[in-house]
């Protein structure tokens, strides 16, 4: 089939990926998107036009060699497809599941101009899953350089940086403050969107192949300071993410039943509260949940809520309600389209142009309601989005048991303790060069959410990758610090 003409290729329709039934999946935590079969993956790969000047690559923050891996895939050479993939991306099974492809590779695909883009993300996932199952391409560590590196944080940025540097032959120690590696991939993103077996598979494989020394339970800034790491290592990378939650400044935020999305998702995902009491950590949400915000984290929280509500409902009982409360309109929703679509399918109720003004509680200090005001769209603001303005006299109370705030997060300040010279912006993010990741402190690089504030998994991976390249050049004496 690989001798098709461009016209023939353009006539093939984009292949849908099968999903778990939208009613059944409300009551379980297993993965929603089921992935392509080999046959479908090959058929979808046939759609790629193999552009001479592939725009998809420039849309990818880590520059995955997309036409190359797709070509190998459609020729049936999976080993080669994995090899092409791993030139730039060490964690394809993860990226294929969580990247916002519509604004990256697929957003740039030439086919998307008139019709539908090649489903690059789904193909990436297919290749990643094949590799997880078959292990065709062991990561190889280059000869020992004698250089030591500390990577702080084992989320997407730190993990990518650690793997790239270890492949170059440097001795890498990877520090994680929680009890297991993965950062937001394990505490934030739910099982039904990114199975933890996939995350652990990708991480343990890389850590074992490349002899990375993984140290969990190590809180840098407390167990060791940055300066202590610098004394022991030739270079340090900070990929500590943006884990500090924000709360709205409205009355009632300390009532029982008000949680940050971080607390809720950590209980559910990292601590497996959906399996309480087999796992020790509980989560209590009552019968009606309001999630404030409409980003990817809000979608994760509301879809987790929907599942918990179903799981705790007895036969014949109504399963409760999970709401999104968002002050702007549907057009401004920042979450990935697929997440919003899945949430709608699962029965999440969206309340647009609705802004909370107060959380109401009872005499026991528990949440009973969320007082909101209706909004309307006014003039565009600095972000170019139309500014929501309150409609006078439109206050009303939603009866809810739980309020989850998904309003964005800021970098955790602990890593900056005793780290003189590591400059921070007024938003608490580390000051670092966007191209190289160099901070204002010598021999310290940073990347991912700790620099940008809350963003995406893949942009953090891109930052980890760029920093690793610069660190490698510095360690090999090809570049100086000044």
């Amino acid at each position, binding site marked *: 089939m690989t001798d098709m003409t461009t016209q023939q290729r353009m006539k093939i329709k984009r292949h849908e990926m099968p999903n778990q039934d939208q009613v059944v999946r409300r009551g379980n935590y297993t993965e929603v998107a089921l992935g392509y079969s080999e046959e479908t993956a090959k058929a979808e790969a046939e759609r790629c036009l193999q552009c001479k000047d592939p725009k998809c690559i420039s849309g990818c923050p880590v520059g995955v060699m997309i036409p190359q891996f797709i070509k190998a895939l459609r020729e049936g050479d999976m080993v080669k497809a994995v090899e092409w993939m791993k030139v730039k991306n060490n964690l394809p099974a993860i990226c294929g599941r969580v990247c916002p492809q519509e604004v990256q590779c697929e957003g740039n695909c030439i086919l998307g101009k008139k019709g539908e883009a090649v489903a690059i993300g789904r193909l990436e996932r297919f290749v990643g899953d094949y590799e997880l199952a078959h292990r065709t391409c062991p990561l190889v560590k280059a000869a020992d350089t004698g250089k030591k590196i500390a990577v702080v944080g084992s989320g997407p940025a730190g993990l990518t940086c650690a793997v790239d540097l270890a492949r170059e032959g440097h001795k890498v120690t990877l520090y994680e*403050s*929680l*009890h297991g590696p993965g950062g937001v991939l394990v*505490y934030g993103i739910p099982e039904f969107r990114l199975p933890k077996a996939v995350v652990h598979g990708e991480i343990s494989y890389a850590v074992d192949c490349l002899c990375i020394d993984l*140290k*969990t*339970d*190590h*809180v840098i800034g*407390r*167990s*060791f300071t940055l300066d202590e790491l610098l004394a022991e290592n030739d270079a340090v990378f900070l990929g500590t993410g943006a*884990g*500090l*939650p924000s*709360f709205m400044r409205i009355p009632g*935020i*300390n009532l*029982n*039943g008000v*949680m*940050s999305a*971080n*607390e809720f998702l*950590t*209980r559910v995902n*990292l*601590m497996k509260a959906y399996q*309480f*009491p*087999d*796992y*020790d*950590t*509980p989560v*209590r949400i009552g019968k009606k949940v309001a999630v404030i915000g409409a980003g990817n984290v809000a979608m994760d929280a509301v879809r987790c809520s929907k599942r918990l509500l179903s799981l705790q409902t007895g036969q014949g009982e109504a399963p409760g309600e999970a709401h999104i409360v968002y002050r702007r309109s549907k057009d401004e929703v920042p979450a990935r389209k697929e997440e919003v679509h899945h949430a709608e399918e699962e029965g999440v109720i969206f309340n647009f142009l609705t802004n909370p003004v107060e959380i109401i509680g009872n005499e*026991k*200090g*528990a949440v009973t309601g969320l007082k909101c005001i209706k909004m309307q769209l006014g003039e565009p603001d600095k972000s170019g989005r139309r500014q929501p303005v309150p409609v006078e006299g439109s206050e009303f109370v939603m009866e809810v048991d739980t309020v989850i705030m998904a309003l964005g997060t800021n970098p*955790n*300040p*602990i890593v900056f303790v005793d780290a003189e010279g590591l400059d921070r912006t007024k938003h608490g993010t580390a000051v670092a060069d966007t191209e190289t990741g160099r901070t204002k402190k010598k021999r310290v690089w940073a990347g991912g959410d700790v620099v940008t504030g809350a963003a995406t998994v893949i942009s953090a991976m891109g930052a980890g990758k760029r920093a690793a390249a610069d660190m490698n050049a510095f360690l090999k004496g090809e570049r100086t610090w000044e």
Partner: protein
Amino acid sequence: MYRIMKKEVLSDVVKLMEIEAPHVARKAQAGQFVIVRIDEFGERIPLTIADFNREAGTITIIFQELGKSTIQLGKLNVGDTISSFAGPLGHPTEVKNYGTVVCMGGGVGVAPIYPIARALKEAGNTVISIIGARNKELLFWEEKMRAVSDELVVCTDDGSHGRKSLVTEPLKELLENRDKKVSHVWAIGPAVMMKFVTLTTKPYDVPTTVSLNTIMIDGTGMCGGCRVLLEDGAQFVCVDGPEFNGHKVNWDSLLSRLSFYKDEEKKAMEHYAHKCRLESAAAKGEK
């Protein structure tokens, strides 16, 4: 994995363990805490550091068996391991020479007050300590506390040992006694005890530091579950504390938040007891 190096039974429900955790011991200071997770299924529980040995690389924890996790922890023995042990977390106690200080420990709170009293004594303070428990059986570390205090008052609720009173009574007498010139009070214990200590010191305007032990998950500022309402807004116990100016704490909000998961705690206990019964029945069956 972190090995239990020593275990002491301080009372029926209070146990001491020394855990091998050099990465925590190297920096641990009085006033800080650790997060402990027993096994793969375990929750992350915060425990205040009762003592540390930098040379041996060990941390001493003391805990009262109150719920599923602490009861399970109490069943472990020397040589057993626990899955996670992270720290030292939170800010250490601000140790300097205040003059005369009062260090108060209620119940299991005697454990974390000990290193604070010791550090304050070493910094040149006159240390008056008041420790208390419901009864004699629940009291521990009386001699250790005496060794680091200029004066020690021991109370029990039922009068089975020391003075029959709440810890706030001798405190009030000290504050009344102008010769003593108490310049700072530390109180660690159940939330209700700390609340009443701050109510006692308030009229005398004596600065009072309390160490809060709230519901927590990560212990590093990530979840915000530990947030406490102060006069000037909410703060996180894990990264802003665990010590706070007790006069600014909204105790009613704190007590209400502490009780939020009571039903689940009960359910976890029942589930655990059931599992233990099944296991012991199975073990008997094998014999």
